[in-house]
């Protein structure tokens, strides 16, 4: 089963689920509401026997999850989470605005708790996860624009310098984000976009530096020596080639750039 972790308002995620399902894939949407359903069991133990580090002190000590409102149950002695074969994460974090089923006074705290839980749970999965979360962000490393430019510069990639300033007294212009003229979407070893091979290679190297397999990289033009402008962990999954590449990646494909 493939899982897409997304807001229930994420139409692109909904469309991707429908598309993959239409092609015969088992796929479900996991939304923040699923975290308020009986059925989640996430175990952690010092006794590292199973490949998931779960305790064998009790036959009930198998982790389980709830996806699309349905608890994924164990089949015999198999671990329920083994049924999940790939995960695409579309939620940067859990926002309290998503939790309308929680009383208003508790929403902020519950959102923080759910977010902390998802970081641990997604990190514990053995299947492909696009992208693996970091403690700062469900989509990967929460790098600011400066950090992306810094990472690219460290790799020797030509960059468009970024500058920001803040002052209460001086007249400071708001930072204007560069308009991308060309983008490359990295999905595993595939680089999607009409760019020179060198730029595709740059994009993959930046993804490596960030330790992610799903990344959209922006350049000033499609040919060298184009400048690196920035990168997004939030990818346009409505593009058919991107959706197909993600499916292939999560299904264990290894197509190259």
């Amino acid at each position, binding site marked *: 089963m493939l899982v897409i972790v997304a807001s229930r308002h994420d139409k692109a995620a909904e469309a991707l689920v429908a598309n993959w399902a239409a092609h015969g894939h088992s796929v479900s949407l996991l939304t923040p509401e699923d975290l308020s359903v009986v059925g*989640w069991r996430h175990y952690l133990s010092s006794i590292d026997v199973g490949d998931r580090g779960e305790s064998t002190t009790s036959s009930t000590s198998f982790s389980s999850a709830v996806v699309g409102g349905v608890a994924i149950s164990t089949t015999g002695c198999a671990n329920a989470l083994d049924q999940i074969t790939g995960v695409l994460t579309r939620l940067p974090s859990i926002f309290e605005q998503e939790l309308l089923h929680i009383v208003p006074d508790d929403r902020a705290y519950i959102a923080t708790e759910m977010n902390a*839980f998802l970081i641990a749970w997604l990190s514990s999965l053995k299947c492909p996860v696009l992208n693996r979360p970091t*403690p700062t962000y469900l989509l990967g490393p929460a790098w600011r624009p*400066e950090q992306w430019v810094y990472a690219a*510069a460290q790799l020797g990639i030509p960059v468009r310098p970024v500058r920001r*300033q803040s002052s209460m007294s001086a007249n400071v212009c708001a930072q204007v984000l560069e308009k991308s003229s060309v983008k490359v979407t990295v999905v595993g070893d595939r680089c999607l976009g009409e760019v020179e091979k060198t730029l595709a290679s740059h994009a993959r190297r930046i993804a490596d530096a960030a330790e992610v397999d799903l990344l959209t990289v922006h350049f000033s033009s499609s040919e060298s020596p184009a400048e690196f402008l920035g990168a997004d962990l939030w990818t346009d999954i409505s593009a058919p080639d991107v959706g197909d590449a993600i499916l292939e990646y999560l299904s264990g494909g290894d197509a190259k750039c």
Partner: protein
Amino acid sequence: MLILLWGITEESPLAAVHSELTSLGIPSVFLDQRDILDTEIELSVGNILDLPVQGQIRTWYQKIDLSEITAAYLRPYDSRRLPQIAQAGVNSPAWQHAIAVDDTLMSWSEMTPAFVINRPSAMAANGSKPYQLEQIRSLGFKVPETLVTTDPEAVRSFWKLHGDIIYKSISGIRSKVSRVGIEHLERLDNVSWCPTQFQQYIPGRDYRVHVVGTEIFASEVISQADDYRYAAENDESTEIRACHLPEEVEQQCRVLAKAINLPLCGIDLRRTPGGDWYCFEVNPSPGFTYYQQFTGQPISTAIANLLAGKNRI
């Protein structure tokens, strides 16, 4: 050499380290958050090949060139909580400026080649206790059996299995560690609203271990409370005294701190009556002065020396 300290000047750990740096004659600059409205900050990245990160901080009394900073000790509060910012109101220019200053400095602290105690990205693991616990477990420490669940039945089974369990928050929001008792039975169904963390209760003696680079400062905590930090609330006493750990446990603490990229951290251990050592948590911004006042251990001196380049792993 120039050390940057960022936070509130009177905040005990920062003040202690600042005082030590001054005593040792190590040049330092203090960026007091209360000057936030008067703080101007600039950050540039990618302009010069051999100096990819440049920046400057200006206040009414000082100018700090960020490329001159060789080490930094960061203990900032969320600037939005400062009285003058809170009073200005959400989304006011002051509010936005506070966010911008905080974020710019956080961004700088992730990129700078300076030695940073501690980089925010390394500290973030403490914001997901089960995530951090898995880090701790993977590095060889025993950890309590843990269950995070929305299933009341799973809690009952876990409780039955371990006999004595505690619950605590999953995130970094500080919550008191509490033992699950009969009085919680009727509220157990509430776990279905949000994953809740339960742990096997580990009996024994608490230890706080401060790792400062290669140095280890261990304190033994004698308290009857489930969470000694809140012992006073229940009229329970807490005694803290300096102690020595077995060499292999000390080494495990060093390995853990290095692996999770925290040159300064406070590791919470418990030794069971049977002699097993369990690790509960790693605090990435420890309030070490609380322990230092009881034990007399020179932790602030060690931090000052670490910032100056000594005892780094």
